[in-house]
């Protein structure tokens, strides 16, 4: 299916993939693959032969590649929902803060992300609006 989005008001929010109906439809099988990792037996099969396991789900080639390469922002672009893609991070025993660091601007380590959170988190200024960076 097409990955060109019909624009929405909230698309102006920077660095954010709002999980609306378009993304649900685009990412349904990707997200249901992630959901399948809730089951221990499935996790074992996926660990042994990742690509073969992904073939059980009618996902796109781009979605499969992004899963195998653990490109978390790309997964969100391709219709992934964070609570579903998080299951891949949990499968890898990656912490929420490490996942946050991986999705942040290039080069942020887990420790840098943790320090940012303890210092009050990512600031609002400059992060409200793509069209008005001064807000």
């Amino acid at each position, binding site marked *: 299916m097409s990955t060109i989005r019909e624009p929405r008001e909230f698309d102006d*929010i920077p660095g954010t993939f709002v999980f609306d109906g378009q993304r649900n439809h685009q990412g349904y099988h990707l997200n249901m693959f992630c*959901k399948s*990792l*809730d089951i221990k037996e499935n996790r074992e099969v996926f660990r042994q032969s990742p690509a073969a396991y992904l073939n059980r789900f009618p996902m796109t080639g781009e979605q499969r590649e992004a899963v195998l390469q653990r490109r978390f*922002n790309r997964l969100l672009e391709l219709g992934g929902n*964070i609570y579903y893609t*998080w299951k891949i991070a949990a499968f890898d025993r990656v912490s*929420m803060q490490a996942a946050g660091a991986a999705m942040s601007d290039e080069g942020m380590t887990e420790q840098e992300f943790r320090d940012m959170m303890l210092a009050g*988190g*990512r600031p609002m200024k400059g992060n409200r609006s793509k069209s008005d960076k001064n807000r």
Partner: protein
Amino acid sequence: MAKIIAGVGTSHVPAIGAAVDNGKTGNDYWAPLFQKFEPARAWIDEVKPDVCIIVYNDHAHAFDLSSISTFSIGTCESFKSSDEGYGPRPIPDVVGDPRLAWHLCESLIMDEFDITIVNDMTVDHGLTVPLSIMYDQPEAWPCKVIPLAVNVVQYPQPKGTRCLALGKALRKAVEAYDQDLKVAIFGTGGLSHQLQGPRAGLINAEYDEKFLNDLATDPQAVAEITHTEWLRESGSEGIEAVMWLVMRGALGDKVDEVYRFTHCAASNTNYGMTILTD
């Protein structure tokens, strides 16, 4: 007759549950937050609600994208903890109250809130972390629990005005129940946080303070916040706090704020708690 005695607002950060389960509540990272839980634990030990209605969201554990319900009530005898990838939390089963749950469903549906009725479900950190925050690690939870799950994962989440109105209808339903029960209602989730994307780690402490002020004194103003404003100002996951409006709606117009604090950061979240009484 049953009576709503108080509302509790609390974030439901999963790492708080992990800290309890793994005996880390006294370490340098967690101790400052857990010390702030003490007055809340002393308060609930004193008021001893018979039933807690916990308004929370499931995070792709009991429910998934195959069917998405906006408001659901669990009518089960008991609820096991979900396996969130690390095995279920080592906590007691959550005991339900099917008779009260069915009364609420019936009353709400007759009041035109078309609740989904769930007879088979687990409960994830969204519900169990608030229990751990208030009750620590008991052998059995000291209250029965009615899970009221709200979809906040899929856009569009229910509007604030609808959540506030649902709270009012819940109050009416509770007050019409034929048993003498003390009922507390929990609104959970939030405050500002964003787990996803390049903006992950966003916190808006100023916005959260205004939210807590207005929730107590001008809930209608909170209810009228638009989806885009929630998402922009509070983070893509911070919109969970819309569920606190269900709690607020179940209280009277005028409330007393018994306790309140925020703590930044608990994992990726600006943790917030408020306790409000009629």
